């Protein structure tokens, strides 16, 4: 079990209904993809947020990573749609 802070932004935040939470992740979650699959199973708000996982971006400790990245050691994991700043 690893305790992490999860953060959600924009419509990911709106669908899940909160901006952040602390969770203990099962030890068998190794990658971003495995984490989003696990989160999608936590309830319908999560299923809705992650229904199209291809478009969700992820940051580990405030750095962009791919879906195949390992999450080991990350303290803060953020999920959000493609950025539209500038």
């Amino acid at each position, binding site marked *: 079990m690893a305790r992490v802070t999860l*953060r959600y*932004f*924009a*419509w990911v935040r709106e669908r899940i209904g909160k901006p952040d939470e602390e969770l203990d992740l099962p030890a068998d979650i190794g990658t971003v993809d495995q984490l989003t699959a696990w989160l999608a199973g936590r309830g319908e708000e999560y299923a809705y947020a992650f229904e199209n996982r291809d478009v969700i*971006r992820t*940051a580990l400790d*405030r*750095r*962009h*990573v*791919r879906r195949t*990245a390992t999450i080991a050691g990350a303290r803060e994991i*953020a999920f*959000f*749609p*493609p*950025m*539209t*700043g*500038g």
Partner: protein
Amino acid sequence: MQPTVRLQRERFDAAAEAAALRRGRTDVGAVVTFTGICRGDENGKPITALTLEHYPGMAEAEIERHVAEASQRWPLLGVTVIHRYGRIEPGEDIVLVATASSHREAAFAAADFLMDFLKTRAPFWKQVEQAGDRNWVEAKQSDDAAAERWRKPKIGDAAE
């Protein structure tokens, strides 16, 4: 070179920021500024306002990383990036990128590069208010394509 990177809710003075980049020095031969402004329409329909959400901490860090990369690629004498968040009405400034160099090529290229990366990599999200509705702005493929122009094989980080 000590770049300036600021995220703020308040308006900024683009002219004063650009002036600060070259004040009291005679090595700067070129200053380029880009000012991004909230337009009064989106997809052909009038808008009431934009609201910009950002990821505090990561937004600053991501901009600073790209400013550092710009400084490695081009001989810059100064860089200022200011990005607002919160509610912004049509006609108000959203973002400023200002670059200073001895010669024009570096100042132009660095400003263009930084804007492409702010669009596609800096964690900001725009929501648009139109006729009482609020909708998240969708990312544009053309912005990804623009950012892709700058990619060098060895620089790309782990993300798509």
